[in-house]
């Protein structure tokens, strides 16, 4: 058999390094989770992951992460739009600010947000005046996740918006398209795959977030406990197997979610563009 010629050189070596790298830093550590949790046996595993409190914690984690990613999808798009399309004083500065949630230790973010949005806090007092509690409720958790997830969406969408050709919009406009039509039919379909990618990154990040959330959540059982806190709680009792059992469920469900979003992304790339 003749060796197939590849256009790009070095496939063998770079693929080897990819496999090694992924194995050492992702696959083997992750498989440890499955090995550790398998010590439980099916019956106990099932008992741990379906206990009332743990199930409630999953719900809180998934719902708040989803809600936060949704908000970030909408407002991240808006922010990226403003940063790309308009010029105004201090634009560079604001552009730099977007990345701060990446750099800031999340515990610091959590403490700052909690203080601001507590019922006597600067912002929280206005909400508590109209009867809305933010810190120590799921709303607070969502808020913390919005904070840490925003850069993912903005940074995914921004380059795509920058790459859009104005000429296409101008052409559409000269053909009589309204502004709404231009956005719906030209800009949005182009941005959608990147938006979905940003959404899924923000969502995944939110699911695993611990540091900032524990401060703002209040950690009340059956109310505001998140799944990562349940894992920490198990570890605190030296229950390694139980902790990893919860992690396994998180991992599998997030993996399914991410694959689904990936699929959506592929689908949107193909179909939305060719609509009509």
């Amino acid at each position: 058999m003749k060796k197939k010629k590849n256009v790009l050189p070095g496939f063998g070596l770079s693929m080897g390094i990819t496999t090694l790298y992924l194995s050492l830093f992702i696959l083997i550590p992750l498989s440890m989770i499955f090995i550790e949790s398998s010590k439980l046996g099916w019956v106990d595993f099932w008992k741990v992951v379906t206990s009332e409190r743990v199930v409630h914690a999953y719900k809180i984690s998934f719902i708040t992460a989803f809600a936060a990613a949704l908000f970030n999808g909408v407002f991240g798009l808006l922010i990226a739009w403003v940063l790309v399309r308009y010029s105004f004083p201090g634009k560079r500065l604001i552009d730099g600010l977007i990345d701060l949630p990446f750099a800031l230790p999340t515990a610091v973010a959590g403490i700052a947000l909690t203080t601001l949005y507590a019922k006597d806090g600067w912002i929280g007092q206005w909400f508590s005046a109209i009867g809305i509690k933010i810190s120590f409720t799921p709303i607070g958790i969502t808020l913390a996740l919005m904070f840490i997830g925003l850069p993912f969406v903005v940074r995914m969408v921004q380059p795509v918006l920058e790459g859009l050709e104005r000429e296409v919009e101008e052409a559409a406009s000269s053909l009589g398209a309204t502004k709404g039509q231009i956005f719906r039919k030209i800009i949005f379909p182009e941005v959608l795959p990147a938006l979905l990618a940003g959404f899924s990154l923000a969502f995944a990040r939110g699911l695993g977030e611990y540091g900032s959330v524990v401060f703002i959540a209040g950690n009340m059982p059956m109310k505001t406990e998140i799944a990562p806190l349940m894992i920490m709680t198990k570890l605190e009792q030296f229950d390694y197997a139980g902790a990893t059992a919860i992690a396994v469920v998180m991992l599998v469900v997030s993996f399914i979610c991410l694959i689904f979003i990936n699929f959506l992304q592929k689908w949107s790339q193909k179909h939305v563009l060719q609509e009509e």
Partner: protein
Amino acid sequence: MKNRVLFKGLVVIFSTLILLAACANKEASTGDKVEILNASYDPTRELYDEFNKEFAAYWQTEKGQKVVIKQSHGGSGSQARSVIDGLDADVVTLALAYDIDAIAEKKLIDEGWINRLEHNSAPYTSTIVFLVRKGNPKGIKDWDDLAKADVSVITPNPKASGGARWNYLAAWGYALEKFGGDNTKAKEFISSIYKNVEVLDSGARGSTTTFVEKGIGDVLITWENEALLALKEMKKNEFEVVAPSISILAEPSVAVVDKNVDRKGTREAAEAYLQFLYTDIGQEIAAKNYYRPRAEEIAAKYNSQFPEIKLFTIDEKFGSWQEAQETHFSDGGVFDSIYEQ
């Protein structure tokens, strides 16, 4: 030729790794110098800063050997896990015996460690008290007041924080005393206290922040040494310490990690280090850092600092840590059932 760039990149990466490894790999103890790692929990930072200097000086004059003591601080449970997972600690000085038991279970510390040193291997003690806002606006005097409907209580989650288990057990012990050992009534009492808890932080320092910095809650259930330190270091005039009539004798235990000291050849220094905690110098440093000393003379000297509270031990009321853990904090235990509808 094509792969040269890639190859160079790899060389750089691997040499970086080797450098990193070299940094991590420090030499073990030699004849004229010994290094000890003390894995401790959070609120002992100030205590051991001071104590380590004294011990180093003592060891230098006594043995003519230079001793370098490294400190590691963190949550008591996570420190225990680090040691189990291979942190090279020579001694552990943790918040509760249960965490050291967990290390002993993995055969890193010999069984019966708790009887190796005096007083259950707890050279200093503390207890659980209340921190309230200036002037005590809710008039909090004892555990009963925490169960009242209009009081907001701050305490960490006992399942997520080892130190917080003392808080819970202190309240439980009081309830047992009050209701003549009736467990059902005690549980009702504890339930009404935890119903008043607005925020269950994941650790003791987190609760202190919630209460002191964020201004949430009427009363913080906390270790006495933390409360006294908070008074000294933070906004002195804004808080008061209230001592309940009955509380628990919190015994933060210490132990030499046998496996590690035998491998590193640091047993002698490590044992002397813990023994030194029991000397007058060690006891005085503990007292200065608001831990109750065991030595009576030192205790008498610092008498005014510590309010008089009737103290019970965990063994008296709960049998042992293992039993308390099993009944109250295991999954589906008493603490969980408080939150089930």
